[in-house]
């Protein structure tokens, strides 16, 4: 599908992978709705890409429905949806600190997994009523963000790994559900990228230690490189129902 002139929603679009994707999509001619819990940051990115900023808490279904309604009324129905909103927490399932709190597990799953699902179900429901834009009958595409933690979960990441493995697991059935409407679903599993979330989780020293374990290139991924793949997924109609690791060949062993 051509990106030019399409409407794109990017959740978590105010920073990190989402912000870079908003910039790339805008550079290729999409009109962008930056959805983020941080409205001020969202406004900065929206101003930069000549898009609109909409506050949203993806864990709150009323907030998601309201944000999508705002996109629809101000820009129209989106054909490109990138689910980049996410959060993490470092905590072992049990340790001298006691058991992992159930509440924080639920919180991570609410945002990363249920939030992604909620945005997809509501956006897809609007998308399927649109006219197709290609000879294939294509109506739109979802790019979801999981993580290599969904496969290689390190210590202290049961909640994050469970939520991201959930996003990985949704990819194929969601693609199959939406195929009759010409809507594709592809998931990207980023490795270590230089984002506020990654730095907050590991601290600067931990971040550097992890980078020493990346085969090539031995550095943090640039959010623009994530955005480059996300844009390719939008453009390449044969990519569907697939989960793509974008991780410089990193696999997380026990050392992390």
């Amino acid at each position: 599908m051509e990106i030019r002139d399409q409407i794109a929603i990017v959740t978590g679009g105010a920073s990190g992978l989402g912000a870079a994707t908003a910039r790339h999509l805008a550079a290729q001619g999409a009109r962008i709705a930056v959805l983020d819990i941080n409205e001020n940051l969202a406004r900065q990115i929206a101003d930069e890409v000549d898009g609109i900023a909409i506050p949203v808490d993806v864990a709150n279904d009323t907030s998601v429905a309201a944000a999508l309604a705002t996109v629809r009324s101000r820009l129209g129905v989106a054909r490109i949806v990138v689910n980049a909103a996410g959060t993490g927490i470092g905590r072992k399932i049990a340790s001298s600190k006691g058991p992992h709190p159930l509440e924080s597990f639920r919180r991570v799953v609410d945002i990363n997994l249920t939030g992604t699902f909620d945005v997809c179900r509501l956006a897809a429901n609007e998308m399927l009523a649109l006219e197709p834009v290609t000879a294939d009958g294509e109506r739109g595409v979802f790019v979801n963000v999981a993580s290599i933690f969904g496969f290689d979960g390190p210590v202290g990441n049961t909640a994050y790994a469970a939520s991201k493995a959930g996003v990985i697991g949704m990819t194929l059935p969601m693609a199959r559900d939406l195929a009759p409407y010409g809507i594709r679903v592809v998931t990207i599993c980023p490795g270590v990228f230089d984002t506020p979330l990654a730095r907050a989780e590991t601290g600067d020293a931990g971040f550097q230690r992890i980078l020493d374990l990346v085969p090539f290139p031995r550095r943090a991924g640039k959010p623009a490189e994530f955005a480059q793949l996300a844009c390719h997924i939008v453009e390449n109609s044969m990519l569907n129902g697939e989960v793509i690791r974008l991780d410089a060949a990193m696999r997380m062993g026990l050392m992390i």
Partner: protein
Amino acid sequence: MDIRGLTALITGGASGLGAGAARVLSEAGARCALLDRNVDLAREVAAEIDGLALACDVVDTASIETALAAASAELGVPRIVLNAAGIDVAIRTAGPKGPHSLAEFERVLRVNLTGTFNVARLAAQAMTAEPPLNEDGERGVIVNIASVVAEDGPIGQVAYAASKAGVQGMTLPMARDLAPFGIRVVTVAPGMFETPLASGIPQSWIDAIIPTVPFPRRWGNPLEFGALVRQICENPMLNGEMIRIDGAIRMGIEHS
């Protein structure tokens, strides 16, 4: 990696996926050496894209060495290698026709698996002696072709599935071996693409299989495959991964 001006060595470059990728890479500014057993056909594609046609049989080490030397002398040491040479047979493991011919099994392995390995090892060796191309220290990229059959092997595809699963399995260790030299390795697993190899599939099977592609419900175009190969070349964070490009097809028991 900026591919403009780089040499791309493409085995099986005279037709199908190899020729499709050659057209895309050439359009993006690469100089293509098309290696094929059918050098007349390779010449036709080479004439079209201003490339170089070279006779090569990937089961013959001397033939690979000769072609690699000729490509290097004429165009420069290849920094992009696409292993697209492949063959297929349809024979069941055992049945009324007797046991699967061991010679046929080994013939498929020698072309698809050992041939891919042989080209990769010789081309990688030549690349290691070249200067890096960018500040990451990148020297090149090897793109191998597996198949969705590696994961979803249909009936009568035991040799092809074994050979392609071998290519899939080589991806990560090869990427790790070559990471110190700044050489990436990525495998693409195509679904149903319109190629001469696919033209060997019985029409009744094709009539049954295309309707089982979720979306888009049609043959993949080799240029779509080529677009993904270009993205792999250009995106340095893609490494050690196998990417399915298949319109979300999974081959179930109905594909028998």
